[in-house]
């Protein structure tokens, strides 16, 4: 770490001790935050990766199906491809909403307690 520079004003409080981190990690409050995050993010990640792989496999091995024309020159392949865009936008929005409503308040409560009252 720097020893020759003046301490920057935003350096803030020193980090809590390892014991405090272990205590918080084992607390019920943190357990809720962790499970609220993991039970949302992990299955969703598996979900969008499977959906993407499905699309890749269809492109590879289901050419006839993908070439089916739906209206005008718009075929299934194009609609599914645009569908990947749409689901990406939707998942990003959905996760952000979940994070703002369920994760941020819990995280901020723990953070301000740990940084404020050591």
């Amino acid at each position: 770490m720097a020893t020759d520079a003046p301490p920057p004003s935003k350096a803030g409080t020193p980090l809590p001790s390892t014991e405090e981190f272990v205590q918080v990690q084992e607390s019920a409050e943190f357990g809720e935050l962790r499970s609220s995050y993991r039970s949302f993010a992990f299955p969703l990640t598996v979900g969008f990766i499977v959906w993407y792989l499905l699309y890749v496999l269809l492109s590879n091995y289901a050419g006839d199906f993908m070439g089916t024309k739906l209206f005008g020159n718009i075929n299934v392949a194009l609609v599914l491809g645009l569908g990947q865009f749409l689901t990406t936008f939707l998942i990003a929005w959905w996760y952000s909403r979940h994070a703002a409503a369920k994760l941020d308040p819990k995280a901020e409560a723990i953070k301000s307690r740990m940084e404020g009252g050591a």
Partner: protein
Amino acid sequence: MSPAITLAAGEASEHRPLIITLFAVFVAATLVITVWAGRQTKDASDFYAGGRQFTGFQNGLAVSGDYMSAASFLGIAGAIALFGYDGFLYSIGFLVAWLVALLLVAEPLRNSGRYTMGDVLAYRMRQRPVRTAAGTSTIVVSIFYLLAQMAGAGVLVSLLLGITSDGGKIGIVALVGVLMIVYVTIGGMKGTTWVQMVKAVLLIVGALLLTFLVLLKFNFNISDLLGKAADNSGKGAPFLEPGLKYGATSTTKLDFISLGMALVLGTAGLPHILIRFYTVPTAKTARKSVNWAIGLIGTFYLMTLALGFGAAALIKPDEIIASNKAGNTAAPLLALHLGGVDSNWGAILLASISAVAFATILAVVAGLTLASSSSFAHDIYANVIKKGQASEKQEMKAARYATVGIGAVSILLGALARDLNVAGLVALAFAVAASANLPTILYSLFWKRFTTQGALWSIYGGLVTAVGLVLFSPVVSGKPTSMFPDVDFHWFALENPGLISIPVGFLLGWLGTILSKEEPDAGKYAELEVRSLTGTGAH
């Protein structure tokens, strides 16, 4: 010189003064920004992280500017123009990948690291070996990516300016290299971020304009546009279906799966993308920046559809191929045709889009140079060589020297590789990022038992497997499109190693952990886990 290149050169050289003027205006503007940013760069957090005061929107723009390389602008538009639907497949992987960054990586990384990817990987591990591994992987990924961009810049700018001599191409590579050294050594992260923001705005405005003009030609009837593209391509309905590029054989199909995996899992392991999340104050703003990036990048890729199919509909395929075999000049040619081939408007549009492409390259190479020199200075110099005893001043000095060194190496390699086909190196960078970096990041953040040995096995194992497989693939030898077409020592059939190397990276991280004799540091994991989820002590 082949007649093809002379044709393009003849077409371009008429517009050369205008293109050069626009290039010069962009370079001058970015240099002013760089000097201004340099004056405000005082401590290490300014140099590495731009002072951490960018807003979510600003960083989202900069992330987009860092990510949308010339490959994604010119390459995807060109691939769509020549191969139709299969060109579009690329952009889908590039976009979906951002969800991995959003859901699993950006926020924990922002909360628990300071300057580099190595900060998070080494947090709970023995510092020196893991920092060395993280630094090595960062520099390897960034140099591969950089080399592809530099060589691409040489080809592209030569084509746009009608320069055909070897000396001219080397001069372009050297110019790009010197500019990126100046941006990074003087402006640091702050300067680089502003350059990327300006570039993102130019790129999006340019693409919007072309998209609007294309759609106007077809009265905003997308079905007509697609129909005309399919007819004009001479390939008919298959042009709008998957398979023209990747559907040829069962090997190319496997290759496509491999590429898809590398794209989706690689983005969240690219060091030059990861360090962008340190430029914002909190995890919440990091999340906002990814959301902006997803919106901007997604919109941009939707526009490349219009550009690619527009080029296919309005320009004869022979003319696109004659200008550049891979279709890389389809977008600039489209600009010329939309404005009118013999009119001033055509010349102005062509020059503007060419200048945007040049800006794109400069912003991306600056980001890559910064990522690798930061990792050298912070991970390897300060924490391995100096064992954490380097002062902030020494560290910044090391970062600036590293920038000059990496810049010089890239100029040299870029000049040597100017006639090799190095486009495959970008896909390789994604594959290494997905095989070496992503497994280690995810295990570090989420798996309590993960150990130093596990981290080293996944980084080095993923790295060596990915690079090794590419070395013995058709990317390097054995085909007319290879880097060295005249020799053949390839035995691995796929061009992209991801299908093998990504599972190997994950597997080795797990195996190294369960076979290691040391106990994981539970206290350190408590620190990392609590910090990564709550932001306690983030600075």
